[in-house]
């Protein structure tokens, strides 16, 4: 490319009005700092999807919080939504930090990012309890079946019989994050693939407007340690074996789009606005049917296929903050006098101790 054409291209771009979203921001405003992950890492494409989804949804980043545990995946919150507070916490403990943050300020949109080591091994307890509490949290698992930062050990989602350079053969069966989420009564369970941007963005947008916890298990290949074709967490395997349950489309409430009325379309309205449209492909899957979700996951395990899409959704369950019956005003916004009893109320209690 010659210098001249490049300059011309830049001039053309400059002449074009910058594309802004509904709160008047360009997409660049949703970026974070440069990634330090390996070139081609699946996690970076997920970060890019988060940037896109947030920009298209017109999220106010100052009202978003990014949390993570420890690992390659957990470094990523630094790489998107630069105007949002972020907390790279402890290995496997992101869910508890998220629980505290959400209770403290229930008006925040909280995005938690974790990996398969962070969630399926050290953090499986906190993961399942956050799910059980239906914490209003977007819980993203960037699943590559391997420990990257500690240089290539098997994780609990690694396939049985899989081979790794330093570890040899894995003798144990994998834990399936979607199955674990479902048995813990998750209200939104989706599986996706870092190499499938359109589907992932639709799922992320739906997750943002979901009422409770949204678990997204995203196969995100590790190009350094686990991207050979025999791994179910590789780009090659994903491209060759992905079976989409449906074509997904998210329609935000602020976009009044006429939707063509397909016979095989299913629309699920989301608690916080908008709806997700699922255009069914084969096999016929109803994501509001829990048993069907179990069956699909089992089928994917039995047949060694990457079945992606919205596996299960239920907008009818109360979230943790709803169950706690907290004030609509976030606890962090309450003035002192609302955060302590009246003198009379305390004296009333003391009278019972006198």
């Amino acid at each position, binding site marked *: 490319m010659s210098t001249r054409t490049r300059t011309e291209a830049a001039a053309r771009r400059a002449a074009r009005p910058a594309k802004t979203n509904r709160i008047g921001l360009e997409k660049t405003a949703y970026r974070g700092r440069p990634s330090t992950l390996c070139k081609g890492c699946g996690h970076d494409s997920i970060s890019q999807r988060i940037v896109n989804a947030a920009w298209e949804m017109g999220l106010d980043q*100052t009202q978003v919080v990014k949390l993570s545990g420890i690992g390659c995946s957990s470094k990523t919150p630094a790489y998107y939504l630069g105007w949002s*507070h*972020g907390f*790279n916490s402890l290995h496997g*403990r992101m869910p508890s930090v998220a629980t505290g*943050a959400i209770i403290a*300020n229930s008006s925040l949109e909280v995005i938690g990012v974790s990996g398969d080591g962070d969630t399926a091994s050290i953090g499986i307890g906190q993961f399942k309890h956050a799910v059980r509490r239906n914490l209003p949290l977007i819980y993203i698992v960037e699943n590559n079946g391997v420990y990257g930062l500690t240089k290539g050990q098997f994780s609990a989602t690694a396939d049985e019989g899989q081979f790794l350079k330093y570890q040899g053969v894995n003798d144990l069966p994998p834990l399936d994050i979607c199955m674990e989420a479902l048995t813990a009564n998750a209200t939104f369970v989706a599986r996706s693939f870092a190499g499938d941007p359109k589907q992932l963005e639709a799922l992320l947008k739906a997750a943002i407007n979901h009422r409770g916890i949204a678990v997204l298990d995203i196969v995100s290949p590790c190009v350094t340690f686990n991207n050979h074709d025999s791994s179910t967490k590789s780009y090659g395997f994903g491209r060759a074996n992905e079976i989409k349950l449906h074509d997904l489309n998210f329609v935000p409430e602020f976009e009044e789009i006429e939707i063509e009325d397909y016979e095989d379309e299913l629309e699920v309205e989301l608690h916080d606005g908008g709806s997700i449209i699922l255009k069914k492909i084969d096999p016929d899957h109803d994501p509001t049917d829990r048993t069907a979700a179990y069956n699909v996951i089992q089928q994917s395990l039995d047949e060694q296929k990457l079945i992606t899409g919205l596996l299960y959704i239920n907008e009818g369950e109360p979230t943790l903050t709803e169950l706690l019956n907290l004030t609509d005003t976030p606890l962090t916004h309450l003035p002192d*006098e609302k955060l302590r*009893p009246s003198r009379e109320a305390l004296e009333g209690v003391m009278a019972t101790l006198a």
Partner: protein
Amino acid sequence: MSVAVREAPIVKPDAPAAVNDFAINVATANGSGSQTSNGVLLRALFKMGIPINGKNLFPSNIQGLPTWYIIRLSKDGFLARREMTDIQVCMNGRTVAEDMERVVPGGIVIYDDSLPVANRRKDVTYYEMPVKDLVKEAKLPHALRDYVANMVYVGVLAELLGIESVEIEAALLHHFEGKEKAAGLNMEMVERAIDWASAHVGQHHGYRVERMTGFNEGKILVDGNTAAALGALAGGLSLASWYPITPSSSMAESVEKYASTLRTDKDTGKATVAVIQAEDELAAIGMVVGAGWTGARAMTCTSGPGISLMSEFAGLAYFAEVPAVIWDIQRMGPSTGLPTRTSQGDILAAYYLGHGDTRHVVLFPANPAECFDFGRIAFDLAEELQTLVFVLSDLDLGMNAHISEPFEYSDAPFKRGKVLSAEDLEERQGSWGRYMDVDGDGIAYRTLPGTRHNMAAYFTRGTGHNEYGYYSERPEDWEQNLERLKRKFETARQLVPSPVLDEVEGAQVGIISLGSNHDGVEEARARLEATGLSTNYLRLRALPIDESVRTFIERNRIVFVIEANSDGQLHNILTTEEPAQALKLVSMAKCDGLPLSARYIAGEVQKAVEEALI
């Protein structure tokens, strides 16, 4: 019914009458419902104006293992644990032999007549209670019999000692929160026991209780855990997350109990505080750190095993500089065996908890009123210093009922520390550094998630950040940060509650102690004073220590550091922080699962002073 007193009371005419000055020990089996009886006795005596303290020595068990409840009455207000018993109530056959050994000569043993009481002492008076017969006569519903049986000793003690039955009735109503039927059933049993005792036992001339004034007026009867819970609720608590562990559970349960009364928003009827029973202690502290980072006042309560599990988060809170509060109600550890026995064995662990170079602010409340105050003060300190604050109570203070000053209501503004709002950021044109020491006190400014300004956000990590909160592995950046944390710790010295000093003119022997040892220390000092040995006393209320600790040591020839653990943990810290005076500091540490007694403290001080000074 043919029940008779087998031996006549031995009351020597010249025996000094012990009025409002003796100890009752009730031996029962765990889970037999004795808590109600003992609580009622304690409360009735409290309402008669008598200075009292009740200590529950209980096993790690639901039902069956031996439990003792010791009520100390002291007209002079000395309420530490007494080693010997004046009146022993035996309701547990398995412990009769050892229970009898503890009784002072001239003391009394009252026992359930179904128990084997062999090898009777000649110097002790025995009274036999026909518990089963009295219960049978009362014709109570079958399911309640075992529970109400313990009311028999309440009635017998009432008659023997002169406890007013009207106060017992009031205490029962209080216990059953006004439920007259339940209180009535129990009172009926008490009255039957009183009637029986008046016919068969009579009143004792040696041990008596008498209504008195001058001590209990205006005071309340409360355990430290309830006080701490109320203090936290009054101090702006927004989230309490916890995992069940003795002896801290009752603190969290008290938060739950009082939350709706004290913290329901009157405009909306909704809660302004959340309580979460977490899946484990790691999650409990994780929630606290998450809430503290977001700007809410959050607390967890636990005990030794819990703080071990919390140690990684403790370090993170220290280095990421997140406000958090941990109440550690100390007990023996680790694991099982003595988890229901008191100890002050977490002082070192709490002070240094975490990996890397961590030192935490640690508070030591000594009584329920201080537990209440520290409920709020711990949050103020955590937010002012942007750090983790420990409050170290213990089983004796936390779970036993103590006479306390009423709690002082505070409507002073909460000290929320250095927090930049969107307007502040606008003024500074967005220029700020999360870990920058602008004011020279080591405390940097922070912003809260949700602040509506596009320069508000920062990215929080444990280590590896520069002044602006950006990722950095430069040695200079981290060293500079550690230097600032040291400055912050020096600031903490000035902010924590200062020690309480009680100095006697001319005294050259000092005592440093902390927390619930106070009752034992005060009584020991009085005993020592009576033998001519005056002592100065510094009651430490917080770590890090301030200048007053150094000067106190300087003013004394020898200073005993008294604590309820085996290694002398506070002594260890003081010698480290005051190396120049280390030789003056003598450790007096005891760890047997029981609150320190005045007899032990006075005896050891006397012995050591004789060895050291003479």
